[in-house]
């Protein structure tokens, strides 16, 4: 290494790709052999410069530096009225004129509002050209609670809040507090008898490929509950426990449900579902491996997922 070579790129003498990648990283100490090589090799200099640009772009690319690196660092999804506007402007067939996956979990006991106006109940974009600007004051007076219209009218308020670009961890906390969920119903209680639609959970990636699970809606004491049951999770991806979440289709916005109890590969949790929880927006159930580290964000280690 101490003898600089004249040939800018003699084959076989370049540092391997992984060492060049390290040379582009902010915290790595200099590798003297690589530094010496870069002095003489334009090709490798260019390679490292390219990789450094990637690091720079990532650091300015909105991937925030929130501790724990939760899902919140992802790019935020546009508010839901953008898709509704597209569907309306293109006159898409009804089945696509709403959230993907269409179905909204209906209330099991038939009382209470549908949790979300899922496209079909939403006003056409012409009435709200820049939907997100609609304020809570735009909610029509005297709309009876519990109707489709009321459910639709509630949406702008949530949207309005979301339009502020806050770190997602904060946003999730706010949502959780605002919706009053995040508490398991009577921890330790055996799962309530399941009723209503069942979501099948499938393994995500290779974290726990043998895992499976279900999510069912149930009613107990006149209150809706979501019953999450998981089997065959042997690894927990290095975490301490499993946590259940509701997620939007882009996987960037989350509502925490809570930790699952259990062991030996089988876990369960029963969570109260407040009226008005917008299942149309958060139409995916996610089970992640988490640590007891006090960080309320998603670990990004999803074990199971299923669409409502």
């Amino acid at each position, binding site marked *: 290494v101490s003898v600089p070579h004249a040939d800018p790129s003699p084959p076989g003498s370049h540092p391997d*790709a*992984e060492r060049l*990648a*390290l040379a*582009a*990283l*902010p*915290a*790595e*100490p200099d590798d003297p052999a690589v530094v010496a090589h870069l002095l003489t090799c334009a090709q490798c200099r260019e390679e490292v410069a*390219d*990789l450094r640009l*990637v*690091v720079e*772009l*990532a*650091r*300015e*690319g*909105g*991937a925030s*530096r929130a501790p724990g*690196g939760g899902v919140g*660092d*992802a*790019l*935020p*999804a*546009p*508010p839901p*009225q*953008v*898709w509704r*506007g*597209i569907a309306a*402007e*293109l006159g*898409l*067939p009804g089945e*696509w004129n709403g959230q*993907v996956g269409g179905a909204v979990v209906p209330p099991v006991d038939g009382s209470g509002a549908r949790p979300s106006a899922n496209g079909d109940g939403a006003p056409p*974009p012409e009435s709200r050209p*820049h*939907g*997100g*600007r609609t304020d809570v004051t735009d909610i029509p007076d005297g709309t009876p609670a519990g109707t489709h219209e009321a459910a639709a009218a509630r949406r702008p308020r949530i949207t309005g809040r979301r*339009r502020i*670009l806050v770190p997602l961890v904060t946003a999730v906390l706010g949502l959780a507090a605002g919706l009053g969920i995040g508490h398991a119903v009577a921890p330790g209680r055996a799962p309530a008898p399941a009723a209503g639609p069942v979501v099948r959970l499938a393994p*995500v*990636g290779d*974290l726990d490929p043998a895992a499976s699970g279900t999510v069912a809606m149930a009613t107990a004491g006149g209150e809706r509950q979501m019953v999450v049951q998981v089997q065959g999770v042997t690894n927990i*991806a*290095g975490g301490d426990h499993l946590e259940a979440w509701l997620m939007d*289709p*882009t*996987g*960037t916005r989350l509502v925490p449900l809570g930790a699952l109890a259990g062991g030996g590969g089988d876990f369960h949790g029963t969570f109260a579902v407040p009226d008005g929880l917008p299942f149309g927006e958060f139409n995916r159930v996610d089970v992640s491996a988490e640590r007891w580290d006090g960080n309320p964000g998603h670990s*990004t*280690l*999803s074990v199971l997922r299923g669409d409502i």
Partner: protein
Amino acid sequence: MTDGAPTEPRPAPATEPPPREALELRFAAGDSAALRETYDRYSAAVYAIALRTLGAHHDAEDVTQQVFVRAWRGRDTFDPERGTLGGWLVGITRRQVSDRLSGRVRESRAADRAGRAVRNEPTPELDRVVDAVVVADELDKLAPHVRRIVRLAFFDDLTHQQIAAVTGLPLGTVKSHLRRGMDRLRRGWER
């Protein structure tokens, strides 16, 4: 790295897994389910580009809507053989954003002539924003175990040895994940 020019020849054999190509073919064929999937895949990036360059939520929402409306109406002009869907959408986004920015310039000149205050909002350079957003988007899409390691190196300023200690992974695994993740980010939406 995010050249959306439709004339760009596609580099030889795709190393990407097939689903993205399948989506592109279905989109080009006019399958409206593919439009929604395309929206789910790319709308956050389109929205982020618009938001960061225009700096106004309502403009960014409007641009995002117009990009997907135009993309769908113009799907006949998208040729999966000549570029990625992501690159093509970025091209449409660039034009939408540029139109609005030049509209603002005209407005501010008019305002200037009228003796009123000139809106002078610094806007980040479009190309740089596009590149940064694509990298951020690809970072989100990395496999969780790779993403975690890349994030620790990029944002938490850990060395690969510290990352190995934190994650309990062998040094060699950390190094290969880092390289693989960085290559994926560098490739962006090219093929």
